[in-house]
């Protein structure tokens, strides 16, 4: 890949493993009394958030700060953006301020891609979630979590069976996960009511099922996606109760999983909707761990994009090492 991280599809297997291996080393920093490295001293990372997402912003902020970068948080609320300033003018402002990297969360699919390819700014662009398109660092932290729990933190996910359940149609997490997990050799099955699966899904590198119970027994990990209650009003499903009954993960369904299998959720959760409270709080649940791992993975991404004279996440340069 390039100077930017826009899509999980940008990552080769070697790129992805480099990020995961680097994150594995960086995870130890969190165990130290001084959780800080001097690596990005003098570099400026802007968190440009057009959509409220406290958890993702905090995660990127912690990652950048642990690497000693200067962090500027630019949220659309209360800024000139909410007064109708265009993405272009915002980008030109950030360029003038000398941003080395822009971490962008935007409600429009493709906004990070546009920012990276517009010529509006020179820094690296990291997609922190765009519309219903992608969320590559979430996929990386999910893969990191699976690798730790299922593969002792090493290698790829060859042959691991991952089931992703819920609103795939509107989920940037699902898109990035399918792409990255396929790159890492995992076998992904998407489970959702047909209304919540996009047209053309047969071309994705995964299987599709409408029946959650049929796939649980052979899953190494089950990832539950957030389902917004408002989808009910647009007739994607009849009622919350029916959704929960057909596609929610409760104790009974969890019991059908193999013993080693883990339960994941990118958060924020709708307890009682897609995931039962008891399941979310069970030892199999990696939900809190995912948050912790998010910081390590984002540190790795920022380090590999900004730490050197040029990004390290490039296979051709790896051979030169």
């Amino acid at each position, binding site marked *: 890949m390039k100077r930017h991280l826009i899509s999980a599809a940008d990552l080769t297997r070697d790129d992805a493993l*480099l990020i995961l*291996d*680097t994150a594995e*080393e*960086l995870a*130890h920093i969190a165990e*130290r*009394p*001084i959780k*800080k*490295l*001097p*690596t990005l001293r003098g570099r400026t990372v802007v968190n440009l958030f057009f959509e409220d997402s406290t958890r993702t912003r905090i995660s990127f902020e912690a990652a950048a700060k642990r*690497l000693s970068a200067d962090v500027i948080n630019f949220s659309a609320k209360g800024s000139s953006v909410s007064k109708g300033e265009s993405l272009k003018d915002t980008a030109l402002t950030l360029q003038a301020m000398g941003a080395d990297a822009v971490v962008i969360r935007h409600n429009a699919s493709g906004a990070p891609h546009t920012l990276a390819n517009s010529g509006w700014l020179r820094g690296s662009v990291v997609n922190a979630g765009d519309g219903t398109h992608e969320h590559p660092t979430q996929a990386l932290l999910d893969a990191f979590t699976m690798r730790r729990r299922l593969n002792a933190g090493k290698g790829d996910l060859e042959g691991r069976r991952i089931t992703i359940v819920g609103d795939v149609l509107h989920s940037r997490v699902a898109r990035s996960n399918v792409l990255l997990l396929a790159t890492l050799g995992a076998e992904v099955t998407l489970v959702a009511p047909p209304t919540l699966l996009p047209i053309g899904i047969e071309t994705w590198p995964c299987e599709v099922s409408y029946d959650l119970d049929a796939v649980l027994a052979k899953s190494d990990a089950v990832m539950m996606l957030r389902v917004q209650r408002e989808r009910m009003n647009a007739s994607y499903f009849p009622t919350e109760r029916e959704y929960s009954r057909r596609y929610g993960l409760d104790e009974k369904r969890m019991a059908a999983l193999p013993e080693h299998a883990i339960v994941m959720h990118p958060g924020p959760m709708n307890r009682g909707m897609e995931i039962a409270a008891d399941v979310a709080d069970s030892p199999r649940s990696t939900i809190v761990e995912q948050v912790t791992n998010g910081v390590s993975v984002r540190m790795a991404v920022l*380090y*590999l*994009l*900004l*730490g*050197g*004279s*040029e*990004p*390290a996440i*490039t296979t*051709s*340069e790896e*051979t*030169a*090492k």
Partner: protein
Amino acid sequence: MTKHTPRPGDLDPASARAVLEASDIARVLTRVAHEIVERAKGADDVVLLGIPTRGVALARRLAARLDDIEDAKVPVGALDITMYRDDLRLRPARALERTEIPADGLDGKLVVLVDDVLYSGRTIRAALDALNDIGRPRAVQLAVLVDRGHRELPIRADYVGKNLPTSQRETVQVLLEEYDGRDAVLLGTRGSASAAAAPIGGAAAQVPATPEAE
């Protein structure tokens, strides 16, 4: 990391001559181990921290010798200094090596940093910074297999396997059984193999060849 792969900066095999053979390396390590025992008045609170990659193997070998001499289990760890380097911006970001700090930590201990070659001193400067973030040792000492001179910082080694006068055009390469299949220290000029390993075209071709371990 893959072993046995030629590294950029590897010696041109035609120019290389061995300045230390396997038996020499074994002998100087034994000597250094004895010096450590002497200076540290035993090995009670010694912790050996190798600097990846080859410093870690050397630290393990020293620990084995200390064990023989003092019959004490000396804790061995690894200290990756990549994130503390002062030349990060001069080349693409690189993969990290493992840092492993012994379970009892470093506070109040005599930490002996172990590296293969001491050259500019910048690696050791970075290692001291890294140590600072991890704990507060009683004292820090430095052991190297080869000191080739040309210091750029006020740093010196406490234990030196061999002082090797070199010119800056020359390259010193340490080969160790654990990584390279044999023990030797080679001196020569930089090979052209590194250029061949670089990708064709693009910015990467202009990346300066990675200097050998210091």
